[in-house]
């Protein structure tokens, strides 16, 4: 059985999971299977079959597990978006379709040798910085939830941070491949770029108030630096710098302090000052309202969950009980409806994706490919950790998206680019020479 045959079998399985999820939502809402849900599922399956067909032509030796895993996650993502907003499923499905289109296009364009990217590494580096700073440009940036993450371009909202992450990884793979010997010697002057990037990460936090993507990008940078040089000292120094910077930001920025307070003490027994309405309120009714409500949603799922489509997200009069359910808190919606069993299965999908990605990095033949695959995979894992960990109160909550599951166009596109990168690297590594 070739990798592609395994991929096809996996896609059939993923199609079944996605179909069942959509059917469950439709039955919970309308009492029966609607033609709309069936059409949805069929279209979804056809979409991934197209991707599979292109993969057969362009990357025949690529890992066969990644595409089915992405299909399961996006399938559940479409289902939960359909569940939370009747129009949301179709829109999310459209974004997945565009994402698959981007995947196919990337595979076709780079099918001969993706390593040409290495020669454009500085271009990617500049692009990453520009994309990161884009939301801070006056007139373009959009503040959502006190965080500048969005860019408004006509009717489209655009989250450039997601694409910046991919650009950053490509840049770092190229840059570190070139400089890894000199960096490994550990002379002080070589630490210059490290300090520069640390400064940039902090600058972005100050500019955008976005702790999540700062943590994410800096984490990716340290991980790739470590893989390239093998010096744990860099990681230690880097983490120390990040901790120092974070402490500095904590004392300097009220926004950061609030996030940490909410994280450490979401519930209070006595009323504290509430900045939202200027009165004294319990913190769970004010600053930590979102986090606490999301935890209630998770707890309500219990072991087996309420069943997809049968969770409680709104009061009988229609008022929403959990804010930002489709973006930041999609995990808590899933946790309520799928229960511990269901979300553990989803987390297992993320875990498998990461294992396969790292295996690709191990098997890749050249430094650039290794760094690229390891960077993309670690970025994927860390992003999942930061957002889900935020929802679960492991780390302070930040507003980044859950790969393949959250509603949002840019996020879906970026993750399909990431998938394309891993497929290309694995195809080259496994190809007979």
């Amino acid at each position, binding site marked *: 059985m070739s990798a592609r045959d395994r991929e096809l079998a996996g896609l059939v399985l993923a199609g079944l999971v996605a179909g069942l999820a959509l059917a469950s939502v439709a039955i919970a*809402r309308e*009492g029966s299977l609607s033609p709309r849900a069936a059409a949805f599922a069929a279209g979804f399956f056809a979409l991934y079959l197209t991707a599979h067909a292109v993969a057969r032509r362009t990357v025949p030796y690529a890992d066969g597990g990644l595409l089915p895993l992405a299909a399961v996650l996006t399938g559940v993502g479409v289902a939960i978006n359909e569940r939370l907003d009747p129009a949301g499923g179709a829109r999310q499905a459209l974004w997945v379709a565009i994402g698959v289109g981007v995947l196919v296009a990337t595979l076709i364009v780079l099918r001969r040798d993706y390593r040409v990217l290495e020669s454009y590494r500085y271009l990617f580096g500049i692009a990453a910085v520009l994309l990161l700073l884009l939301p801070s440009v006056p007139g373009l940036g959009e503040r959502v939830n006190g965080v500048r993450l969005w860019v408004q371009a006509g009717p489209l909202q655009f989250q450039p941070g997601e694409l910046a992450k991919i650009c950053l990884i490509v840049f770092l793979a190229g840059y570190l491949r070139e400089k890894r010997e000199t960096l490994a010697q550990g002379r002080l002057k070589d630490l210059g770029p490290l300090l520069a990037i640390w400064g940039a990460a902090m600058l972005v936090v100050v500019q955008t108030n976005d702790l999540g993507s700062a943590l994410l990008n800096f984490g990716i940078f340290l*991980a790739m630096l*470590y*893989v*390239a040089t*093998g010096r744990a000292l860099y990681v230690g120094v880097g983490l120390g710098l990040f901790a120092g910077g974070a402490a500095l930001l904590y004392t300097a920025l009220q926004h950061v302090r609030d996030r940490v307070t909410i994280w450490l003490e979401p*519930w209070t027994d006595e009323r504290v000052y509430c900045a939202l309405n200027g009165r004294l309120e*319990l913190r*769970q*009714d004010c600053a930590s309202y979102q986090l*606490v*409500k999301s*935890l*209630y*949603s*998770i*707890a*309500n*799922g*219990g*072991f087996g969950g*309420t069943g997809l489509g049968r969770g*409680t*997200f*709104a*009061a*009988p*009069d229609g008022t929403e*009980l*959990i804010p930002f359910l489709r973006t930041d808190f999609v995990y808590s919606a899933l*946790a*309520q409806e799928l*229960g*511990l069993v269901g*979300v*553990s299965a989803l*987390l297992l999908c*993320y*875990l498998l994706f*990461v*294992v396969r990605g*790292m295996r690709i*990095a*191990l098997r890749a033949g050249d*430094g650039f490919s*290794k*760094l690229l695959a*390891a960077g993309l*995979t*670690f970025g994927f*894992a*860390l992003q*999942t*950790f930061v957002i*889900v*960990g935020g929802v*679960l*109160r*492991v780390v302070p909550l930040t507003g980044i998206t859950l790969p393949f599951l959250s509603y949002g166009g840019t996020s879906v596109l970026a993750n399909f680019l990431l998938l394309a990168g891993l497929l290309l690297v694995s195809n080259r590594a496994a190809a007979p020479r």
Partner: protein
Amino acid sequence: MNRQIVRLTHVSLALLAVLVVMTTYWQTWAAPGLADRQDNAIRRVAELAIERGLIFSFAPRRRLARNVEREVDGSTLFFRRYPYGPLTAHVVGYSTAGRSRTGLERSLNDYLTGATDNLSSVVDKALDELRGRPVRGSDVVTTIDLDAQRVALEALGTRCGAVVALDPRTGKVRVLVSSPSFDPNLVETRFAQISRITADCASPAPLLDRATAGLYVPGSTFKVITASAALESGKYTPESSFFDPGYCLVYGKRVSNFDTSRPFGTISLENALVHSVNSVFCNVGLKLGAKRILEQARRFGFYQRPPLETPSEERAASGLYRNRKLYTPRLDSDVDAGRMAFGQERMLVTPLQMAMVAGAIGTGGRLMEPHVVERIVRPGGRVVLRPRPKLLREAVSEETAQAVARMMRLAVERGTGTAARLSGFVVGGKTGTGETGVPGSNTTWFIAFAGRSEDEPAEVAIAVVLENQSGTGGTTAAPIARAVLEALLASAENP
């Protein structure tokens, strides 16, 4: 580079493993605690799909809380209705989608929603869910006597106050009334109407359960506890004689009797309680010391929330209060024992606590644990909870109880409490008039026990408190106590 990649893999997997562990924590370990939180609207709304157990009064058996079904977005939801509205609002409480719960609706929520962990109920629940039937909760039968409850609420009228009546032999609470009351059916939709309720006191606070959480100056009703402490100490007998000059000297200051116009001269301890002579109790208090009196109060249940089935937030402990917190003096000199002995000096008590005191005196010193739940029944009819009468402790010796009971009976026969006389029954009572510092705005009390003969334990104990009164406990509270006692003893005769 491969060694580093392997290590990075381990880090990545560890990060994701943390997520699995923490999800498990929130969904299993922490879930019950989160479900109990009052601001957990999700849980509250989710529980609307459960057919909540009904709540009944004991006699006559009536539904105090029932359900109405409504279809919302294709699912059947159950909303609460309270047929008797204000009559049982505080003890039953309310359960709504929008607001937090109160009363038994809150404290017995696990029973009412069928969430109590018990193998057979778990199986029943799972079967109901599989069949697509709504889960049914357990029914609660309270110990409330609805007729006496109505007599009490009507007798209070527009006055602010509370009535608590219980069977001191078993601890079963028959009447639990707080005035002003409110209509729990309005909580969800017309809450503003509740906040506009007015009554004859400065802060009507209709949601406050004055019967179990209202803290009042006990006034002369506290003399029952001082008298008990005096007799228990062995230093006094009911015949111990005192000279009453009409006042008592505390740290060189005069503390006058309530009625200073006619000092009693030489008087026995017994008659001092019958006529409620402050100076005598003031001197007894100074002699015994604050700690000994407080120790006796503790034996009656002070300094603890009385163990009732309602939420603990809706029950207050009686005792000395300082800055709104319970306060235990370390030295006798920390507290003015003379003033405390007749119920002033920052002593604050709840009506429930004083009913327990009267009950213990009426039953030979046996203080029973109060209950408001008669039994809890699964939909199939199986009883899951039936509280047994439980002795909290011997508050006083039988001899002391009998002596104090005799004093209280005499007070009703020929002393301050004659308004509570009830032909055919033996009633012992004590009046109280707590001064709040505002002239013409006293807190008036009457606590009593009643039975069929002096030799048998009392059948009913009662505490009545009224706020903002110009009269005395004897003229304002005693008639209410009499009416409620009559209703309770009548229903005991014709069950």
